[in-house]
């Protein structure tokens, strides 16, 4: 229970308060008093808790399989120094740094996170984090909606389906429509369609993901950027694989005004989907529309450098229903982990990781596409994910791979009925050549069986 009270403490405290019992302190009207028997898990001593969770852990066999799963959550190497630092109790058990004088360390770390995100995305400003990549997209879209008062947003169909679904959840609340742009045969977004769509001046924003859900590197074409600017449509870039920021031209360099994304790849555990760390970065023009916490550098009463939460007039605890967002708690600790990751890797390490991801995914692409009956669905330049067409039901092929202890990737038919024979595969620096060889051998056998049926 983690409570220190002795019976004598309780008696003395009740006496000081002037009540006879704990029951008296917690009296409620009879009409609502608890009558049900509570059905919660039983109380266990700590070593039994450890055994119980050992039991749960033993039922997650997926961690022992060779994995080519990506699609918005990526396996990367995380140096042990990250956990050693981030799990320090001072960081772990602090609240949001409202009292700046005793929170200088955390505030500085968030200021460093904001800087890293700006340097990586080519933007002027970053906030202190949002829940995850998908909510970052929704919040980014809301920034654009607030900027120009329109009631529609335009998104590429090559944006992660989960992100588009979350955007739709948020937009349903705001009575905002979401329209989608088609994907071309090479796996990138139809820029011509984009150019003509934004001409209507109906869209607050147009969002593009790079690398997109299929792994393809995207950018606004010069024509599309010109059309977006002419129609005052805010270009939003989505980044789900943050390692790509160590290699690819920044979204800022091709015209994005808001960059949203997911920093899980920077040392944050997969943890079956969370917690991760969303980021939102933007230009100076949109500074006052950014949601959530911002840390600023200032001075103290002696002129010493000091950090503090700032521009709080945007936020819910001041502005209530007129706030830029309802967000309060964000993902500070995951952002701290990402900041430590970036500090440890530095430019050399991040570039090396990016290069290894490019190398391993090309090795994977070569291995699978050399199998008879299998080819790559798209041919646009890619980062670390590929779409593999097995010309058989992807779900069945993946099930057969599972029997060989391989998680071969994502069945694209789950999200795109037109790609039901396609598997989204990911390789990172952790993917080994022998895993790739085993996958290719197994795939070869499986598609031969399917071809003969």
């Amino acid at each position: 229970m983690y409570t220190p009270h002795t019976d004598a403490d309780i008696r003395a405290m009740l006496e000081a308060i002037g009540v006879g019992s704990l029951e008296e302190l917690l009296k409620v009207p009879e009409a609502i008093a608890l009558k049900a028997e509570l059905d919660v898990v039983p109380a266990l001593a700590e070593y039994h808790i450890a055994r119980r969770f050992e039991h749960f852990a033993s039922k997650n066999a997926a961690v022992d399989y060779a994995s080519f799963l990506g699609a918005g959550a990526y396996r990367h190497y995380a140096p042990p120094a990250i956990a050693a630092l981030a799990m320090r109790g001072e960081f772990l058990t602090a609240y949001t740094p409202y009292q700046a004088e005793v929170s200088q360390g955390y505030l500085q770390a968030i200021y460093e996170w904001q800087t890293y995100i700006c340097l990586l995305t080519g933007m002027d400003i970053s906030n202190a984090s949002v829940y995850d990549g998908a909510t970052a997209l929704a919040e980014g879209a809301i920034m654009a909606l607030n900027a120009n008062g329109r009631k529609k947003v335009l998104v590429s169909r090559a944006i992660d389906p989960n992100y588009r679904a979350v955007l739709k959840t948020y937009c349903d609340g705001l009575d905002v429509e979401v329209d989608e742009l088609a994907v071309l045969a090479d796996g990138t977004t139809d820029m011509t369609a984009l150019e003509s769509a934004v001409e209507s001046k109906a869209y607050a924003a147009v969002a593009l993901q790079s690398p997109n859900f299929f792994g393809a590197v995207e950018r606004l074409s010069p024509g599309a950027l010109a059309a977006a600017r002419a129609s005052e449509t805010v270009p939003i870039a989505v980044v789900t694989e943050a390692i790509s920021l160590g290699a690819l031209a920044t979204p800022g360099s091709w015209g994005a005004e808001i960059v949203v994304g997911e920093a899980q790849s920077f040392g944050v555990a997969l943890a079956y989907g969370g917690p991760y760390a969303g980021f939102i970065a933007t230009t100076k023009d949109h500074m006052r529309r950014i949601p959530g916490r911002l840390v600023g550098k200032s001075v103290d009463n002696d002129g010493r450098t000091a950090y503090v939460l700032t521009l709080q007039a945007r936020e819910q605890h001041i502005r209530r229903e007129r706030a830029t967002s309802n967000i309060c708690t964000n993902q500070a600790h995951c952002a701290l982990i990402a900041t430590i990751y970036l500090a440890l890797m530095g430019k050399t390490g991040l570039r090396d990781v990016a290069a290894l991801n490019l190398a391993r995914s090309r090795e994977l692409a070569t291995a699978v596409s050399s199998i008879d009956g299998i080819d790559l669905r798209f041919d646009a330049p890619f980062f670390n994910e590929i779409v593999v067409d097995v010309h058989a039901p992807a779900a069945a092929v993946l099930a057969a791979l599972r029997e060989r202890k391989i998680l071969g990737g994502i069945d694209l038919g789950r999200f795109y009925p037109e790609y039901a024979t396609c598997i989204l595969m990911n390789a990172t620096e952790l993917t080994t050549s022998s895993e790739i060889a085993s996958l290719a051998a197994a795939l070869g056998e499986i598609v031969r069986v399917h071809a003969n049926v």
Partner: protein
Amino acid sequence: MSTPTFDKTQSPLIFDLGQDGRANRYVDAGKPLEAFLPKDLLRDDLPLPDNTELDVVRHFTKLSQRTFGIDLGFYPLGSCTMKYNPRVNDAMAAKREFAQLHPYAPDDLAQGALQVMYELERSLASLFGMAAFSLNPSAGAHAELSALLIAKKYFRDKGETKRDKVIVPDTAHGTNPASAAMCGFKVISIPSDERGRVSVAEIEKVLGPDTAVCMMTNPNTLGLFEDHIHEIAAAVHDAGGLMYYDGANANAIMGNVRPGDMGFDLMHLNTHKTFTIPHGGGGAGHGPVGVAAHLVDYLPTPVVRAVECHPELAEGPSAPSDRMKFTLDFDRPKSIGPMRSFWSNFAHAVRALAYIYANGAEGLKRVSELAVLNANYIRVKVAEFLDTPYPEICRHEFVASAQELKKETGVKALDIAKALLDHGMMAPTMYFPLLVPECLMIEPTETESKETLDVFIGVLREIVEKAKTNPAEVMAAPVTTVVGRVDETRAARQPDLRWVRA
């Protein structure tokens, strides 16, 4: 790069440290990027510092030493439930089989994770009297938004689209009206009565065919139990509206009274408050959203579905959930949809469940009782030297006001808060709720001992006495911290939100 400063009061930025050529070797050297992609798709420059691991370890260790957490001392931050965070929770969450589990792991290879989610969901549903919870939302405000989206969709399906008003008491957290606005609802703020509570009469004044949701926190942010809550719920239901329970203060009611029995249709929990998930300096949180039976179909996706499949395990020591097989259910046509990229802040679900296991139903009841005991003990002692505007039994927190002290001495709530920092304690929540002038909102939690509370009370008494004899000294606080009071006006007027190379 510039020479780092070694002044103990200054900490150089990571960007001012490091040298090119000091990289750590975590991974193999990669080929030049041009080997893989056309040059025009690549960035020209990656302006990040290269630091040795030792320098990075020292940097962040020093930053940690400039940060105050529960592990360093008393943290009576009202409405935040800063209780001890047991380390076993983190150890369980860090297990390889949880930490390395990919969210797209097939259900049959992730049964343990799904069982954790199922056991947590079922335990919360029973504890709070809801039909079901979804563990999807990422934090309290996110869960509020989910709940209001559920309400919006529910009324739309019933054809009651004119219901566009959300009723929010003036004591509500700022997230309540902000979440309502994100669903297109209009916010009606209602005043508290002289007892610091919402009266049935005030609610009835604003109820009507346009009422969608009434959002209540109980106990409210004054720490007072809304003792007419069932009558308020009945009135809202008679008007066709839904009742929403803001669970930020759930630490005051466990095993004592349930939102479901109070008449609430929707609720959220901040498991990072009530269930000992570390706040981590402002997140990640974890915000399960719970609903009564008529709203289950609207919960965000996915939800964990369980089917009994191993009846042979009925004998012996196994738990009921050990006989079940679990799937993630995405096929829910009435759902509001997903609120986030993946299923849940799962690592936090592990922590919350470990905490429930440490307590069981009886233990959680005791937790709330002792949280209330601690708050009342401080309240009666503080009332000896500071104004407590609602001098009656409170729940897990209470408010004091420095209004009289300010009139008398010039010392404000802010000054008291800063002076506490000099004594190695966190300050209470200040200037909230808004209806109490010079408000200090104090929540001790149940994990603090009587000795700690006595020290806090003594320090607070000393500060108030000092205010009367030497107010300037209190107004100069803090003086023992690494920096003094920070110029917030300058921070807002000349925003400096990132490092730029000099």
